[in-house]
C-alpha cells in the first residue's frame, strides 16, 4: 500500500519481526527490554516515525495515520502479552498464607442454627412450623393441658404472670413457660387430623442459674392421627437423634409424668462420648434430652377433637439444651450475653 511503497515493505516486516520477538519472551523483564528496542528513542519502530518528516508534505497525514494504526496494533499485542505474563507471575509466586480480601460475612446465633437444623429434620417427615402467642391465656398454657387451677403440677413451671384483667373463661395472661400451649391451639385451628405440628418459641420461667435463663427456647412436636402408637413416637425420636446427633446415636424412653400426656416419658439419647457404654461424663451411657408422651385424652378433648377416634404424641425439649449437648458451653447464660467474640465463633 502507500506506506509499503514509501518504506519498502520494511514497516510490514518490522511488525512481523516485533510480534515474533514478543511471542518468544518468557518474562516481564525481557518483554520490557523488547518494548524499548521497538519504541525506545532509537527503537526500530521509532525510526519510521522519525523518517515521516522526510516524506512529501501532501502524503504525511495519510502515512502518519497508517503508522499510528500499526503502532496501536503492536501496543495491543504487547499489552496482551503483559497481562498473560502477569497472570502467570501471580500464579507462580504468591504467598498463599497472606491474608485474603474477603467480603464481610456474618454469623447466625447458635440457637437459630439449631432451630434451622431441627426444623429441617422434622420437615422431611411432614411436620410444619407454626407460631403461637408467647403471652397467652392460662387456659392454653395450663388448664386445657389437664392442669386445673391450683394443681400442684403447675409448680414445676415457675410462671411469670402479666398484669392484666383475667378473662372469665381463659384466666390470666401468662408468659408461656413451655411450647405446649400450641397443642390445643393447633387442634382448634385445624379442626381435624392429621396434624403434624412444630412449635419453636421463646419461653419464660422465673429461674436463673448456669443451666437456666429466664428466657429460653423450647421446641415441640405434636402428631395427631388415627392409631398413633408409642412405637411411632420412638421411631420419630430415633430418626431425630440420628439426624441431629449422628448416625450411631439412639434414643430411649423412660417413664415420667406430665399432666398433658399419658403415658409420659423422658427422652434420653446415647452419650456422644461413649455411645451408650457408660463413661465418666454420662455415668449411665445416656444423656437426658427432653420430655414426651401420648397426648392425654383430656387435651385432645380440649382441642375439640374426639379422643376415641384420635390419638397422638407430643415431644419437646429446650433448644439451648441440645446446644449444650453438642458444644462445650457449660453456662447457657453465655448464649444471651451477646458478646460479639462469642457470637463470631459460630
Amino acid at each position: 500500500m502507500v506506506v509499503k511503497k514509501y518504506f519498502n515493505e520494511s514497516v510490514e516486516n518490522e511488525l512481523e519481526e516485533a510480534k515474533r520477538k514478543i511471542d518468544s519472551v518468557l518474562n516481564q523483564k525481557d518483554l520490557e527490554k523488547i518494548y524499548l528496542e521497538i519504541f525506545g528513542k532509537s527503537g526500530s519502530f521509532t525510526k519510521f516515525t522519525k523518517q515521516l518528516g522526510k516524506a512529501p508534505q501532501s502524503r504525511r497525514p495519510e502515512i502518519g495515520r497508517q503508522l499510528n494504526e500499526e503502532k496501536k496494533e503492536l501496543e495491543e499485542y504487547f499489552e496482551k502479552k503483559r497481562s498473560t505474563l502477569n497472570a502467570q507471575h501471580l500464579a507462580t509466586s504468591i504467598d498463599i498464607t497472606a491474608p485474603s480480601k474477603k467480603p464481610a460475612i456474618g454469623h447466625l446465633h447458635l440457637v437459630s442454627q439449631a432451630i434451622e437444623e431441627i426444623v429441617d429434620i422434622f420437615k422431611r417427615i411432614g411436620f410444619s412450623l407454626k407460631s403461637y402467642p408467647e403471652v397467652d391465656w392460662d387456659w392454653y398454657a395450663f388448664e386445657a393441658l389437664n392442669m386445673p387451677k391450683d394443681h400442684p403440677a403447675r409448680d414445676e413451671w415457675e410462671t411469670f404472670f402479666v398484669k392484666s384483667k383475667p378473662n372469665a373463661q381463659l384466666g390470666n395472661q401468662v408468659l408461656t413457660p413451655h411450647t405446649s400451649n400450641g397443642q390445643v391451639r393447633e387442634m382448634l385451628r385445624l379442626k381435624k387430623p392429621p396434624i403434624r405440628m412444630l412449635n419453636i418459641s421463646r419461653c419464660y420461667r422465673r429461674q436463673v442459674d448456669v443451666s437456666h435463663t429466664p428466657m429460653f427456647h423450647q421446641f415441640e412436636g405434636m402428631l395427631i392421627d388415627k392409631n398413633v402408637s408409642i412405637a411411632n413416637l420412638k421411631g420419630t425420636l430415633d430418626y431425630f437423634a440420628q439426624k441431629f446427633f449422628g448416625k450411631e446415636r439412639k434414643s430411649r424412653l423412660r417413664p415420667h409424668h406430665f399432666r398433658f400426656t399419658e403415658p409420659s416419658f423422658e427422652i434420653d439419647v446415647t452419650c456422644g462420648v461413649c455411645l451408650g457404654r457408660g463413661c465418666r461424663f454420662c455415668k449411665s451411657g445416656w444423656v437426658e434430652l427432653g420430655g414426651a408422651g401420648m397426648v392425654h385424652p383430656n387435651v385432645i378433648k380440649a382441642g375439640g377433637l374426639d379422643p376415641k377416634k384420635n390419638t397422638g404424641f407430643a415431644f419437646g425439649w429446650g433448644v439451648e439444651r441440645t446446644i449444650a449437648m453438642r458444644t462445650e458451653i457449660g453456662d447457657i447464660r453465655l448464649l444471651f450475653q451477646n458478646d460479639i467474640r462469642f457470637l463470631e465463633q459460630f
Partner: protein
Amino acid sequence: MNIKIPVSWLRDYLKTDVAAKTLANTLSASGPSVERIDKVKEDYVFDIEVTSNRTDSVSVFGLAREANAILSNLGEKSNHILPKGINLVLEPDTVNILNLDVTIKDLKLCPRFTAIVLDNVKIRPSPAVIQNRLTLSGIRPINNIVDITNYIMLETGQPMHAFDFDKIKGPKMVLRESTEGEKIVTLDKTVRKLPKGSIVIEDAERLIDLCGIMGGANSQISKRTKRVVLFVQAYDPKTIRKTTQSMAFRTEAASRFEKGVDLEGILNALSRAVYLAKTNANAKIASELVDIYKVKSKTPTITLAIKKLNNYLGEAIHPNLAVKILSLLGFEAKLQNETVAATPPSWRIDDVADDVDLIEEIARIYGYQNLKSEIPKGDIPISEKDTLEEVIGLKKALKFLGLTEVISYSIISQKMLALAETKRTNVVELQNPLTENWQYMRPSLLPSLAEIIGQNQFIRQNLRIFEIAKTYIAQGDELPKQDLQLALVLSHGDFFEVKGYLENIAEIIGREMKLKPNAKKHPLFIENQSAAVFSGKERVGTVGVLDSKITNYFNIKGAVAALEINLSTIYSLPTTAKTYKPIPKYPPVIEDISAIFAKQTPLDEIIQTAKKAGAPLVKTVEVIDVFEDEKLGVDKKSVTLRLTYQKSDDTPAQEEVTATRNKISSALEKSLLAQIRK
C-alpha cells in the same frame, strides 16, 4: 420429688440377688429414675426422682413394691417383704388407760385421723442403724421418738407426728380451720401467723399443731418426755396446699400431704411406729386406738379395651401378660370380653383414673425398650408456609450480607422501656418479675440492640447486628399484639447504609418497600434523618439514625443507623410479581444531564419527573452526582442524572434522543424550576 435411700434399707423389703447397679437401671427403665448412686462404706445410696403423681413411691417400702413388680416381670427372683409390726394389734398394754378427747370439726379437712398414747417412754438416741439410715437420707437424728416419726415417713411415705402427752391440756384435741389472725410457734421456734382456713389442732387452751406442715413447739418431745401421742393422719390436699402457698413455707410432710397419702396405709404406719417405739423406747400402749375414718367411696373399676392397648403399644401383647403386670403392681385385674378390667390398689387411686393410665402401667413394665421403633405412616398434612419458616431463610440471607445475629431478652427494665416512650396503656408489665432488670415485655427491639452495640463497641469497630423477635403491645383486656420484628443496627453507620440494607431486605423478602417522611417524630430516631417504611399502604417500620437520647444512654460513640420492620405484617402482604421482559437486542444510548435544583427538592421527585417526561424511550434514570456549592446560589444543588435510552427494535436515533432530552429538560424546568447546565 427426690428421695435418698440406702440400698440396704430397700433390701429389708425387697429380697433379690440383683446387684445395686442393675437394680438402679431396671428401676430407671420402667419406674422411678435413679439419678445418682453413691457408694457409702459397704452400702449404696440411691438418689431417686419420683414423679409428682407417684407419692406412693416416695418411700422405701413403695420403691421396694415397685422394684419387685419390675424385677418379677423380667423373670428375676424377687420377693416383697412387709415391714415388721405393720399388723400389730393396737390395744392397751397398761391397766391405767389414758384418754385423749379428739374432736374433728369438719371431716372434709381430715379424711382419716389416728392416734394412740404411749407410756413409759425412755427418750434416748436411736439405734445406730436408724441413725445411720436417716443420716444417709439427709435427715438429722434427734432422739428415738422423733427419729421414729421421720423413719416412718421415709419408710412408708406417711408423714406422722409425736406430741408430749403431758403438754396437751385437757387432754383434748380439736381439729378445725384457723380463724383470722391466729398464731403458732412451730418446732423450728418461729412465730407463724396463720392464714385463715389453715388446718390446726387446739388443746384445751391453745394451738398445738399446724396440721400437715409442722407441729407446735409447746407440745414437742423433750428429753424428759414420758408419755407420747403418736399421731398419723391424712388432710385435705387442697387446704394444705393453700396454706403452704400463702405462707411460702413448705416442709417435706406438707409436700406429701398436698399430693395425697394412702388412706389405707395410715393404720399400718401407726402400728409400725408403735412397734418401733416398743422396741427402741420401751414404750407401752396406754390408750385405746383413736381412728376416725371418713368412709371413702368405693374405687371404680377401669376397663381397657385390648384393641386400644395394642394400638398404643404398636403391637399385640398377650392379654394375660397385661393382667399379670397389673396384678404385680397391686391392681385387681381380670380379662373380660376383649377388655382388661382393673381396680387400682389404695395407694394408686388418686393417680390411676382412666384406661390410658392402665396403658402406661402395662407399657412401662412391659418395657419401652421392647416396643418397636417406627416412623409414623399416616398421611402427611398439607400446610401453608408459616412466617417462622420464611424467617429462617431471611436470617441466613442477612448473615451472608455480613450481619451477625444476636438474641436478647424480651423482658426489659423500666429504664429500657422508657427509651421507647410507649404509651402507658400499651405497656405489657409482669405481675411477678424476677428482678428490676426483667420487668416489662419490650415494645421494640432497638433499645436492646443499642445496648449490645454499647457493650461491644470497643471490641469491634464496625458492628453490624440484627435480631428477629416478637414485640409486645398491650391491647386492653385482649392478649397483647405480638408481632415478629426485624431490627438491624449499624455502629458508625449512616442513613444511606441502612437504607441500602432495607432495599436488600425488600429484595430478599420479595415485597415492595418505600420510604416516606415520618408523620411525627419517632422516639427512637433523629427526626430529620429517619423515615417511615411502607409496603403498599401498610406502615411496616422505621429506618434512620438513632436518636442521641438512645446512644447517649448506652454511652455509644458515633452515630448508630438502624431499622425496625414488622415481619408479621410484611409477610402477610402479597409478594411482588416477577414477570419476564425480553433482553434488549439493541444497545442503548446513555447520556448524562446536569441541572441545578432547589436544595429541598427530593431526588426521587427529580427521577420520577425525568422518567415520566422521557417515557417510553428512557428506560432508567439514575442519580450519579449531587453537590452543593456557593456558586450555584443559596439553597441550591447540582444533580447529574444518567439517562438510558433504549428501544426493543432498534438503536435509538440521535434525533429521537435529542427530542426526548429536550422534553425532559423542559419538564424539569417547568415543574421543578430546574436550571439545566450546559
